[in-house]
């Protein structure tokens, strides 16, 4: 589904991502974990073409390293940005409709809104409320719901647990699990390594702009180095 090779991101003279390779198979759930400043978000943004980057990125075998970010949505790649990034002054429903901007099949869009509401019943209750007045977890749900409205084949999630209460984190991760069950491929960036690995099939560990480890989740959870560095043991 997604193949990344030699990806590099620079901010001015500072290298944030120093040439990483990763791949995500169709239907797979992959985690990208690591400490603050390891380059996880930069990697995700570079894949979604929100940042200028070097290296090759292929989506379903096609090179997208030079595609425009808006065109990727149409090709089935959706990003849930860090810090949620909902349209705070628009209603929940308007947010979802905006998520379907790249589509023109009106009837199908309405059906998809109902589908998102079924998946996220909390949003249905709040449909007419402005997104900015919702709690952090509800806003995260709006962001996920909005991304789903573009009917993505692969969903990139940037720290969905950020700033949420533990109970809300569980709720949001249940939703993500549900999304994956419907066949959406996931690439999940998380600081909360245990949570991410419990959801995903496989994980990459990033440190100072490089991938230092790659293994199935179970193996990473058992790895003494990972346990010491990221699981707090």
């Amino acid at each position, binding site marked *: 589904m997604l193949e990344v090779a030699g990806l590099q991101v620079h901010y001015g003279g500072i290298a944030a991502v120093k040439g990483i390779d990763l791949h995500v198979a169709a239907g797979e759930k992959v985690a990208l974990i690591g400490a603050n400043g390891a380059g996880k978000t930069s990697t995700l943004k570079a894949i979604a073409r929100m940042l200028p980057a070097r290296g090759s990125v292929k989506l379903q075998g096609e090179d997208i390293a030079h595609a*425009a970010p808006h065109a990727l949505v149409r090709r089935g790649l959706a990003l849930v940005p860090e810090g949620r990034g909902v349209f*705070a002054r628009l209603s929940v429903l308007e947010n979802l409709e*905006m998520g379907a901007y790249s589509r023109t099949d009106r009837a199908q869009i309405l059906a998809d809104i109902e589908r998102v509401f079924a998946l996220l019943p909390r949003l249905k209750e709040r449909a007419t409320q402005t997104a900015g007045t919702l709690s952090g977890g509800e806003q995260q749900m709006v962001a996920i719901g909005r991304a789903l409205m573009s009917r993505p084949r692969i969903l990139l999630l940037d720290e969905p647990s950020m700033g949420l209460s533990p109970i809300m984190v569980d709720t949001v991760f249940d939703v993500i699990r549900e999304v994956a069950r419907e066949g959406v491929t996931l690439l999940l960036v998380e600081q909360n390594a245990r949570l991410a690995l419990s959801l995903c099939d496989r994980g990459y560990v990033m440190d100072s702009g490089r991938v230092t480890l790659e293994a199935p989740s179970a193996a990473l959870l058992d790895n003494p180095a990972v346990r010491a560095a990221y699981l707090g043991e």
Partner: protein
Amino acid sequence: MSATNARLKSRLGIALIAVALAVLPFVVGAGFGNSWVRIIDFALLYIMLALGLNIVVGFAGLLDLGYIAFYAVGAYLYALLSSPHLAQAFPALFAAAPGWPVWLVLPLGAGLAGLCGVLLGTPTLKLRGDYLAIVTLGFGEIIRIFLNNLNAPANITNGPQGINNIAAVHIGGHALNRPLELFGIVLPGVHLHYYFFLALTLLVIFVCVRLQDSRLGRAWVAIREDEVAARACGINTRNVKLLAFGLGATFGGVAGGLFASFQGFVSPESFGLLESIMVLCMVVLGGMGHIPGVILGAVLLALLPEALRWGAVPMQQSLFGKVLIDPESLRLLLFGVALVLVMRWRPEGLWPSALRRRELSTHAADGA
């Protein structure tokens, strides 16, 4: 039953407004004199300008302080194509004024202004807020200074003296600045201009309403609210911004052409920074992003100063026996006070859209 009633009511309302707009110049002309009809003509031009700027500032949320430059572009293009200036300055190239018909010159001015809008938009794509405001302000001044100085080496704009003898709009062989007798009623030039401007204003309003409800309108809302999220929704933020600049400028170009034809004279003086700010005030005061509000703002700011100028002298004479403050300076003073009061008590504008009201009340809640 009630639905048909409501439809009947709204039809009746539209009919009443149409009749009111149709007889307005006669009522005003009879009551206050034809100079006031002229002022209303200018108010219509300001409505077009404000609606154009509203696309950029209100819909797309891009603060533009140089909008009057597009008005200038439209005005000068009309002036050059409809006056003997080019023939006098370049006798070798032009035997006489081109004198092209208005339905060709106006769209040409609109197109050129739109192109200028896109040209201004291109280098500013990554700028927002204050930075964008500064660049657009600079652009507005550049155009004005160009117009001021392009009389040498080749005399294109005739410099600070401006261009005069601009022909009025001709429709069906009749010049709009000459009275027309129709069914025994004599319509003076200002009335004819009124109807012509009114028709174009209604067209501009129609286009604005359609744009607001369109896919493009929704994309503008998205980039105004959050550009990163807009991109994540699959919106081509670059094109959408350029379209906002281009379409907004197009309206300015049309209004500029009409201005030149109506005045018969253009000079760089008419296109200063203060004019840009005036149009911006109309948008902000009326209610950013809300078409009826912007129209209200434009009408108020175009008419109120004239009303003050008209009322200030007799009032001061009856109160103090002489004129203490010159009406022109009083006008600016009162204008400033009114702006401060409105921004203090109605920051969302006099007639805001539901969305904008929501935004500002959320802000107030955040601040509390």
